[in-house]
């Protein structure tokens, strides 16, 4: 049976990449279990499916992964409708850049490795449309995707101010961070899969 990474990477059943994955069944099964724990079998008390799907669609689009963006876009459409999914697409298009970048603390030797780059913020009109919670979640997702080394107490305080609970922030952080893994496994295996088909 194919799983989500197979679908994202285009793994051919019975092919060599399929065999590589099946040689590590615990990795394969638990990558899928991670996806299910975040998107399929969930408790929506602290983070709704609509919020999870919208953030995932945004993160996939920031990684310029068209297959994954389409996948999570469908989740957003099903959970919250076309307007939100279309809005996330537009927002991600404007927010896309290349990372990692960001400043290191000014009082240390790593300052010389600081790389400047954009800090994404939702404007007032979009914030009014998305609400404070989702707007803050998207800003935090952009931070984690592109400049995780600039993470801070202040960044978490902005989520709390927008209404996110501690449990909700843990789930949101896992979701964005998990996608950083899933999308890279898919990207790496897609390269092997392309060779597999050649």
């Amino acid at each position, binding site marked *: 049976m194919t799983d989500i990474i197979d679908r994202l990477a285009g793994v051919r059943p019975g092919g060599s990449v399929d065999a590589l994955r099946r040689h590590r069944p615990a990795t394969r099964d638990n990558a899928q279990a991670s996806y299910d724990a975040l998107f399929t079998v969930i408790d929506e008390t602290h983070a709704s499916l609509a919020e999870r799907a919208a953030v995932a669609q945004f993160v996939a689009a920031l990684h310029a992964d068209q297959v994954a963006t389409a996948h999570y876009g469908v989740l957003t459409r099903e959970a919250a409708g076309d307007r939100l999914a279309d809005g996330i697409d537009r927002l991600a298009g404007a927010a896309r850049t290349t990372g990692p970048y960001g400043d*290191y603390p000014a009082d240390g030797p790593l300052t010389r490795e600081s790389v400047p780059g954009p800090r994404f913020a939702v404007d007032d009109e979009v914030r009014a449309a998305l609400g404070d919670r989702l707007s803050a979640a998207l800003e935090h997702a952009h931070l984690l995707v592109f400049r995780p080394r600039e993470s801070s107490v202040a960044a978490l305080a902005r989520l709390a101010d927008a209404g996110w609970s501690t449990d909700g922030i843990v789930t949101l952080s*896992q979701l964005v961070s998990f996608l950083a893994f899933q999308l890279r496994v898919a990207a790496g295996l897609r*390269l092997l899969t392309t060779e597999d088909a050649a």
Partner: protein
Amino acid sequence: MTEQIIDEATDAATGTPARILEHPGAAVPRAFTQAELGWLPWLEPADEATLTERQHAGLVDRSRVKSDYFRLLVRDPDILRARTLTDKDIFYNASDGLPRAERELAAAATSRFNGCIFCASVHARFATHHSKRHDDVQRLLDEGVDAAQDAAWRAVIDAAVALAATPSRLEPAHLDALRDAGFGEQAISDVIHSAAFFNWANRLMLSLGEPEDAPPLP
């Protein structure tokens, strides 16, 4: 689009907003190191006394209940459990494929590139332990991912770093360099998984708390 497009039914605005923890006196390391570091959470870990059976299952190893990091993550036990089991298989199931030392090297290089001083300290230490190549590992920490290495380590580090970029810059040439250095297809898949996994770990460690020098013994 001024009309709100996420309605209250899909907006999980319940519960008390998070309480943030600050550690103003903490000795936060400013450089990469192989020394043991502590880690201070910026959010409240779950109370050990009130953990549910599901949360104990999420911790996988009972000893993790003493860790602030894992007691914070156990607030969402199902994803923690699946993540931990993924982590263990990627790094410890090394009977074939990529050797342990190179899995740890991929983790350390990814952490160095993303800027996670805590993760880099743990996995640089493990890379040294398994390879007995302290100086090569230390050069990765001191000079960065472009510091001189032999061909096999060069290929692992380059692949890990290319994959850590957003969007990924991993190309067929990186895979060919791994093959030229003697790594088989399973080992190459293991490089991809080890490096990819640390993009997950780095973002949790960096965003939910901060490292500190000279931790008190537990």
